[in-house]
């Protein structure tokens, strides 16, 4: 076999699979977004409607509502998880026995199926048999309509997401903290910097590149959430928890509007692509800056 062919042979299966099952579908979806297409038709029979799906969406109240819910969900989830996760990492970044065990236990919520996470939380939020209302009642307090009130439903879903994903931020920030140059922290301590000063002026700035990448990764993932919400509320009550991914799936399967669902998917994809490009550019820029910062910290 010719040596020059080898790399192509090694690459061929991956390129083939990615082309057939990822790139082709995305191209297909872009094309489908210009069609008035329902699932009983072949795509060739669907009528070409230009940009109508895209413009129609903005006049659709349910779509705008779903967009607002998605943004609200992503904002609260990511900011609360960042605050709690980074805070815990700063607090627990010391030689405590049992840290490895804690990290192992912390991975569990991320490893089990989102369907199961939704199931467990739906059970805990149950109006009569759920542990939250049982506890409230035992304390003589009134039950809370966890999943049946539009304010509480979104809040309950945010709480479940915080339970599931804060560990991700905790583990990444802890890894970042433990890879900080020791000499810089040592020097600050010798100079008499207080705990807060060390956190604000040395640890956080040095961790910043990792924190921003972590934050963006979480943000991207927050827009992908679907199963947990599907199981807990299925978007309700009303449209109060109908996040974008769920709206896309319902538009395709319940309302049978494949073209509209494709246009919605494209909006989501473009938005996430912008986030990814920001993240990638930032990583490239910060690599150089961190190198300089570390050098400076180590020297003085």
């Amino acid at each position, binding site marked *: 076999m010719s040596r020059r062919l080898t790399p192509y042979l090694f690459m061929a299966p991956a390129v083939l699979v990615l082309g057939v099952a990822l790139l082709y579908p995305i191209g297909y979806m872009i094309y489908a977004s210009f069609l008035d297409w329902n699932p009983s038709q072949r795509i060739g029979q669907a009528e070409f409607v230009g940009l109508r799906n895209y413009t129609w969406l903005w006049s659709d109240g349910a779509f705008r509502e779903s967009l607002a819910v998605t943004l609200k969900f992503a904002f609260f989830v990511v900011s609360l998880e960042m605050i709690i996760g980074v805070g815990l990492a700063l607090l627990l970044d010391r030689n405590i026995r049992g840290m490895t065990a804690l990290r192992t*236990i912390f991975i569990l919520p991320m490893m089990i199926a989102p369907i199961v996470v939704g199931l467990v939380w739906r*059970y805990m939020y149950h109006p009569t048999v759920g542990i939250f209302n049982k506890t409230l009642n035992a304390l003589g307090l009134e039950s809370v309509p966890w999943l049946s009130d539009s304010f509480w439903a979104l809040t309950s879903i945010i709480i479940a997401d915080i339970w599931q994903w804060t560990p991700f931020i905790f583990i990444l920030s802890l890894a970042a903290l433990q890879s900080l140059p020791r000499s810089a922290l040592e020097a600050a301590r010798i100079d008499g910097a207080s705990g807060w000063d060390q956190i604000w002026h040395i640890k956080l700035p040095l961790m910043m590149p990792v924190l921003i990448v972590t934050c963006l990764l979480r943000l991207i993932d927050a827009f992908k959430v679907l199963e947990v919400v599907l199981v807990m509320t299925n978007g309700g009550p009303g449209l109060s928890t109908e996040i974008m991914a769920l709206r896309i799936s319902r538009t395709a399967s319940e309302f049978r509007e494949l073209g509209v669902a494709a246009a919605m998917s494209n909006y989501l994809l473009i938005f996430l692509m912008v986030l990814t490009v920001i993240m990638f550019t930032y990583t490239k820029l910060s690599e150089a800056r961190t190198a300089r910062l570390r050098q400076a910290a180590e020297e003085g």
Partner: protein
Amino acid sequence: MSRETIAETRTNPAFYALMAALVIMALGPIVMMLTTSLKLNVDITGSASSLLFMPTLQNYETVLCDVLWYAPEHVDYCDPTFGRALQNSLIIALISTALTLIIGTMAAYALVRFRFMGRGTISMSTLMMRMVPPAVLLVPVFGIWTFNFCFQDECLAGTYSGIILVYVAMNLPFVIWILQSFIVQVPVQLEEAARVDGAGPFQVFFLVVLPLIKPGLAAASIFTFRIAWNEFLLANALLDRNTRTVPVTIVNSLTEYDIDWGVIMATGSLLAIPPIIFTFVASKQIITGMTAGAVKG
């Protein structure tokens, strides 16, 4: 970490209290699922304390009735859905994992050793692929798999191969990315030595490189298996009654009212057990996989 801080934590039990609280919070819901799966409905709906109950395996017997070697007494009608779904889930997850690893390792190796594309381009496209939500693939994959990918009258929709193809594609970017970082660390001299001894490129790859990147393969296989095992949306759209996986059957058995919580928690526990085992066996590899992207850049 300096000596003072070690001494400080030794004397300060507050940190242990905090850690204990975190452990309880992280484990609480999972423990609740496992205990509920061992309860009869009387104990679930009853007002008595949720920790005092007679554990029973009845719910598991109901779920697994058609794969058990005996007929449980309390089951009047045995619904074979779950046993079949469990089998489907296992087949689909295992084959997807194996294929993704083989294809992904080969590609990662080529990208590192033959450098016909910059590493920047690869990590960029990996990130790009990572960001695609399964919901976005729903419409096109459904359309293509039901109408376009057909041979005679047989289409990919509804078949194992159809969903496995999707899962392999979904996982490949991540697997290639993570394996690259392990292959880079394999010394080229080792491969050259093998080549001097007369090994061909495929022998070098299978006999020299593969054994050295086992930790990377472990991390990659856990992440791939997890996605294929847990995924719902595309499985729901593509699979039919006979090829359905466990997550799909769970969602189908959820109704607005009158949920049999004991049985459904038993199903959920069965679905959660493999990932829980992986977590305890290979937490180090999982953390490596998780931090590789963000911390190393």
